[in-house]
């Protein structure tokens, strides 16, 4: 892993190129005297074709912010425009369909269904979208094959290593060609080698024109894979910096 150099980016990308546009977002949990403010007026833009990393200490609001961007949590205040859609104003039913059609997820704990094979797990987003089982599994098998898992299609998650499970999760996140990929601590449960492989895959396969990738991470070893890094502290974005990736970090 190469060293990371960063410089503050002072400008916001043009609106047409922006996949994620967040302005003045606050989020309160609880009510009355027990209210906790998790986000305090967050502004953030993520252009298409970029891999943005959200970093910061535990409890700084990374997960809350990414949940709001993914449409799984509503902000208390502020504007959230994702892929041109105003999520804050979107009814819940449409938001569910929006996530189904446009967002891919890679979770820290993988969240694979233990009773499904690798190919079936990777096919879940297509099945949710209404594809039939056979076509979905075939499409998922193709993606798994690209990720080097072609020989483990019929394995259950319990028969796979952590790195292999994360590859299945990446395949699941990409199988329906989402325009926004949200990765929550994708390497935190992996050793250094598997963490590098995972980030290589996300970098190579997921970062495409017309698609944005947001990675929430604590793992300083993978900062070099980012185009930009947004540092969070106490519910605010402290800085957004460009990351200079080393050659060892893989293609971008």
């Amino acid at each position, binding site marked *: 892993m190469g060293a990371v150099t960063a410089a503050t980016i002072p400008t916001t990308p043009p609106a047409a190129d922006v996949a994620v546009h967040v302005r003045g977002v606050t989020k309160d949990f609880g009510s009355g005297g027990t209210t906790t403010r998790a986000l305090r007026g967050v502004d953030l833009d993520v252009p298409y074709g970029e891999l943005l990393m959200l970093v910061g200490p535990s409890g700084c609001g990374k997960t809350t912010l990414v949940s709001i961007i993914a449409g799984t949590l509503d902000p208390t205040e502020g504007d959230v425009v994702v892929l041109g859609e105003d999520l804050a104003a979107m009814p819940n*039913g449409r938001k569910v369909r929006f*996530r189904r059609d446009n967002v891919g997820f890679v979770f820290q704990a993988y969240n694979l269904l233990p*009773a*499904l094979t690798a190919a079936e797990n990777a096919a879940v987003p297509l099945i*949710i979208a209404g594809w039939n089982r056979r076509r979905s599994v075939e499409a998922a098998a193709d993606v798994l094959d690209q990720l080097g898992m072609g020989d483990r299609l019929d394995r259950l998650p319990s028969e796979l290593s952590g790195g292999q499970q994360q590859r299945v999760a990446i395949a699941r996140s990409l199988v329906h060609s989402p325009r926004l990929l949200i990765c929550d601590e994708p390497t935190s449960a992996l050793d250094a080698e598997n963490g590098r492989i995972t980030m290589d895959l996300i970098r190579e396969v997921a970062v495409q024109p017309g698609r944005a990738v947001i990675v929430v991470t604590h793992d300083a070893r993978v900062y070099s894979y980012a185009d930009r890094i947004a540092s969070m502290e106490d519910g605010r974005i402290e800085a957004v910096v460009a990351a200079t990736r080393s050659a060892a970090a893989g293609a971008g």
Partner: protein
Amino acid sequence: MLWIAWKMLVGNRVKYLGIVFGVVFAALLIAQQASIFCGLMSLTINQIRDVEGPGIWGMDKGVQYVDDIKPLADTELFRVKGVPGVEWAVRFYKGIARARLEEGTYEQMILLGLDDATLVGAPRQLFMGSIADLRKPDAVIIDDAGYRRIWPDEPFRIGRTFEMNDRRAVVVGLAKAGRTFTSFPIVYTRYSQAVLFAPPERRVLSFVLAEAAPGVAPEEVCRRIEERTGLQAVTRTQFLWKTIIYYMRKTGIPINFGITVLLGFFVGTAIAGQTFYLFTVENIRQYGALKAMGASNWTILTMVLAQGLQVGLVGYGVGVGLAAVFGWWVRGASRLAFFMPWEVLAITGAAVFVIVLVASLVSIRKVLVVEPAIVFRG
């Protein structure tokens, strides 16, 4: 998504078997106890069912069930015959007689006296002898179970004798009869003979069996009989239900069986509901992930209900199957009453449906309120 629900369910074998066990337990207990209850109830009405032919039973106003004999004057027969709409009417004696066997021992018997001329109420199926032999002096026909009871391990034989009321009775036939609640042997004879076998009483007529004339509804004839004679008259079906309702109301039988059925229902609900809930809680992150990936609440609801339905169908099938096997086994191995009509299957099915519905509802709330954002929390 339903196959995902199914794989999620059966993928966790321990939990799956736990949920199915709860439903099987409930279905087995409900079906088995209800069938034994129905079996017992059928014992109470077998003597009515065995009397084929007449559609109307006339009796004293105070009679509440078939074994509740309140003797009538013989003249009541003629009053019934005189009611418009009555095609024919005959006498029928029913009582308990004490028999003295050849060995000197005593045995209680159900004594049925059939109309001398027509022999209405005679058994339908005979293993030995013929109905016509009842016209011989002192002749009786005994049911096969009764014969085995009083002469166990002895072959069936025509001509055996015993005494009732110091009068000799000669077995001229062996009949098939429905088992009774008391399990006493059933002895058929002519009415004129029965009153000699029975303890002497001024009034001996137990029932007047009648048939409605063609084109007249039996219910209407019953109404006329009651109006003109002051007797109680009911159709055969009404008498069956009257007897069943008496036993249900006046004995503790339904309560005892009902308690067991309810116990099965509640224990089954508790086991299935709790295990299903634990299964759901265990998978809550997976449901959260599915919701995050775009599965709607309706989809999740369908998945949980499908899981409940699957468990219900398997549990119902196994439970009812085991109850049927139990019934088949006890009918062969013992004299335990067991009767499983379709109503028992329907009631058990309804109970199982409620159990899986409750089990599902307990879990549904959990999965519907879970926020998809749960998946972002490590």
